[in-house]
Every structure is written in C-alpha cells, then in structure tokens.
C-alpha cells in the first residue's frame, strides 16, 4: 500500500515518574508497530521548559518519533493521543522530500558528532 513518512512530536505531562513516562512512550510506539508502521528514528529531548504554561504546567517531557506508515494509521493514532490525558500536546507532520533530506543530514551530523568525541579522547590518551 502507499506509505508516507511522518514525524510526531508529543509532550508528556511532567507530573509522572520516570517509569510512567517510559511506559507512555512505549505504549505509543507499540501502537505504531501494531498498525504496521516502522519507526525509523526516535529522539528523546527529555524535560524541557515550555515557552508558555500548558494546563498550568511550565515544563514538559518532549519525545520525537519518525516513522513511515500508511495514511490510514494516522487517524486512530491521533485519537489515541487525544484520549490519553497524560499527553498534553502532540503534532504530527507529513515529511516532504526536503524534510526527509534534512532529517537524514541532521542524523549523519549527529552520528559523526558522536564519533568525533571518541576519536578526540582516543588521541588524548594516545
């Protein structure tokens, strides 16, 4: 079937403990996997300060998931977001070709940024 690339960023309420936030993230990733989407990239931005208070809270746990799936997967995925009250905000965007290119180039930059410190520490020891 025709598949699109999507990118979802969602914010989890900061009130939860670590396991609960992990469990929420796991719940949505499994929901994606069950409906036949495959996740290409994930980013955990952790606890960040919000620019304006949402539901009286001024910090939130950001999580980004990049996946490709059939368009029919998105609607139930979003209703699940709306139904779950631990999620205070979410945004799903369809990735066009420039966006995909950008995301890949960002990932390579991050990848070689991770390798670089290893080399520099290796040189330091050498």
């Amino acid at each position: 079937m025709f598949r699109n690339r999507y990118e979802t960023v969602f914010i989890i309420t900061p009130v939860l403990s670590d396991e609960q936030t992990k469990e929420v993230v796991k719940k949505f990733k499994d929901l994606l996997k069950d409906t036949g989407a495959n996740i290409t990239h994930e980013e955990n931005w952790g606890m960040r300060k919000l620019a304006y208070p949402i539901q009286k809270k001024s910090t939130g746990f950001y999580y980004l998931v990049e996946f490709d799936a059939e368009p029919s997967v998105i609607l139930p995925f979003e209703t699940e977001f709306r139904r779950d009250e631990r999620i205070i905000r979410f945004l799903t965007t369809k990735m066009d070709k420039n966006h995909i290119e950008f995301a890949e180039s960002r990932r390579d930059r991050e990848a070689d940024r991770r390798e670089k410190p290893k080399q520099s520490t290796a040189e330091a020891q050498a």
Partner: protein
Amino acid sequence: MADNKNVRYLNPIAIDTKSERYCRFREKGFKYIDYKDADFLLMLVNEQGKILPRRLTGTSLKYQRRVGKAIKKARHLALLPYLADQLR
C-alpha cells in the same frame, strides 16, 4: 500657489534604511526550515514574539511562507511563545 520646484519635504524620505535586500535563505540555499530548531527561529521573530515582516528581513515570498508555517508549528509545540515581553 508655491510652484512645485522648491517643494521641500517635511522629513527626508527614508530611501534605503535597511540595507538587507537579499533573501538569506535563497543565498545560502536553504532547502527546509525546521520547526524544531527554536533558537534559529528566534532570529526571525521580534521581541514580542511576532514574526518579522519581509520588508525588514528581506526574505523572498517562498521562504517567508515556510518560515511562517515553521514558527506557527513551533508555537503550537511551546518551543516559541505566542507573545512575550522581552525575548532577546
């Protein structure tokens, strides 16, 4: 009737106050403006958090639309404030 030869303007016309007349995005060959990159978008927003108009930033219409969309998505995700008193 003052003949219009020596019509003097009350204040001098601002011919070219802002020298930035080229589109930064087209110059650098930007392909995509990322809505997640808050500190880059901060440069395109004034102190109150409003989007800077094209006449000040000099960006072309094509990229100004993308900037607008990206900033509105960033605001939705609370990466950028809708209104702020002093942002810098």
